[in-house]
């Protein structure tokens, strides 16, 4: 069965969809950030599964082993995780400010307070 080899990716896709759904559909500002997190983490898993090589090992040089998993995606994801944290921190900081200014972290309530805009 040819598509069996793709199964791994599809699980990740489902995870991404769940995360993305939270971002779009949820009105709670914290949950949105959580959703973004899940969305991004799933993308990371996806990248890492790209790097896996059958028969390869972790990319740390050991005498005698020639097959390693691809280190490049690992590096990218390291960077991307950091970026993710940075964004989360920033997002949460904004949520805190929003709560201070509006007394709520529900999107619809905030829009109500601001009128039409």
């Amino acid at each position, binding site marked *: 069965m040819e598509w069996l080899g793709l199964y791994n990716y599809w699980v990740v896709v489902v995870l991404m969809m769940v995360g993305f759904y939270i971002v779009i559909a949820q009105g709670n500002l914290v949950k949105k950030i959580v959703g973004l997190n899940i969305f991004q983490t799933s993308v990371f898993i996806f990248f890492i599964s*790209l790097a896996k090589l059958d028969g390869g090992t972790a990319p740390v040089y050991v005498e005698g082993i020639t097959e390693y998993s691809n280190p490049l995606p690992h590096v*990218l994801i390291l960077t991307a995780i950091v970026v993710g944290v940075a964004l989360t921190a920033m*997002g949460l900081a904004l949520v805190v400010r929003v709560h201070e200014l509006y007394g709520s972290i529900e999107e619809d309530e905030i829009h109500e307070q601001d009128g039409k805009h």
Partner: protein
Amino acid sequence: MDLLIQHLPALQVVLPMLAAPIVMLMARAPRLAWAATTLTTWLTLGVSILLVQQVLLHGSISYHMGGWVPPVGIEYFVDPANIVVLLIISLMGAISMPFALRSVEQEVDKAKHGLFYAAFLLANCGLLGITITGDAFNIFVFFEISALASYALIAMGKDRRAVMSSYQYLVMGTVGTTFLLIGIGFMYIMTGTLNLIDLAQRLPEVNDTGTIRAAFAFLVVGISLKLALFPLHLWLPNAYTYAPSMITVFLSATATKVAIYVLLRIIFSVFGYEFSFSELNLGYVLMPLAMLGILIPSIVAIFQTNIKRMLAYSSVAQVGYMILGVSFASTLGLMASVVHLFNHAVTKAALFMALACIIYRVGGVSLDRMAGIAKQMPWTMAAFVLAGLSLIGIPLTVGFVTKWHLLLAALEGGLWPVAVFLLGTSLLATIYIWKVVEAAYLKEPAEGAQPVREAPMSLLLPTWALTVACLYFGIDTSLPVDLANRAAETLMGGYL
């Protein structure tokens, strides 16, 4: 000097990056922070100008980061296409700094100036990095640097809605960059490389696969979110409206422009004209979106009473013009888009600066508060009117140069209705600009309104510098048109 010339591409990004932490440490001395930031932005502009010179003299420059030969290492790549964008960014950074002094002092808490300018430099550095890098993943990283800094800067607006709009921008922007990341991942698995030039060479072998098509789709959607292509523009009006004046000036002139540049690079250089337009018919998708994106935001703009918001919607419409040029899929159309990058940056920055002058004196720019303002601030309003004419596209302004080329491109493609549509929509711009003119010149100030004075020189001079640029480059068109022409030819030619 040789050392300097040799490392120009690295310096372009590193200068503001280096200055940001230093400026941040000047928290106790706001004026000093400002001075250091100004110096940095002007030096950055100097680097850009030298780069333009180098590219025009010697052709494209490839700079190998860490000394590693691409595609193993990361490459910085300067060619006629991105040099225009680099110039726009550093120019706008440089010109908005003298302006910032008074404006930021009024709008932002003094204790935060060091941080504020550090964030500004980071935004600047991020945008320059996106433009200059030749590596797909590096684009993502710099996107996030500039994005993080802009979120913080926007949240500094006085209105509490600034924070909320910053949050919305953060969510939408992050979704955008994550899409970008997915696209990059798809490209990577099919080609094994991240270097843009290398990608361009290796993609044709695999471009009949669904993966690459999906990659293309994700890249385009992700970037469209960043560049506020209709209907993905929802974050932009709020963000521009509530951000501090100086940040609105800078972002409106640069942020979306850079995203458009990335889109152009991906469509034309990486995937190539053939794939994008012949196989995937991107033009058929972009053109209606662009036209709707011109029409609807223009109409919405007419009904705004907050002028800053009105201009923000107008920015969405202007993005539509740029994308429309791309959708023609011709050198002429592309050239019109590139020249509009420059023209719109100058025009919109001038407009937002004029508004910032009014905000500085009056405190707000709702239509009511602007009633009769022309008598009190004649120079500011004169600049607003002239830049407004440029936005409409009246001849002898830069706006006309764009419109002219867009029209020619439409006619070249045999698209008569589009040509008529283009002219029709400039009438919409006339309506909303004219609403302001009427209020400012013909209405009497509201009862009890405090009379105000003309804006201070430090605000007025940069405003007028840009206004004069609107007119000068509308008459002596050779410089922007020439640069845009080279850029368009380079992009059409792909990387090969």
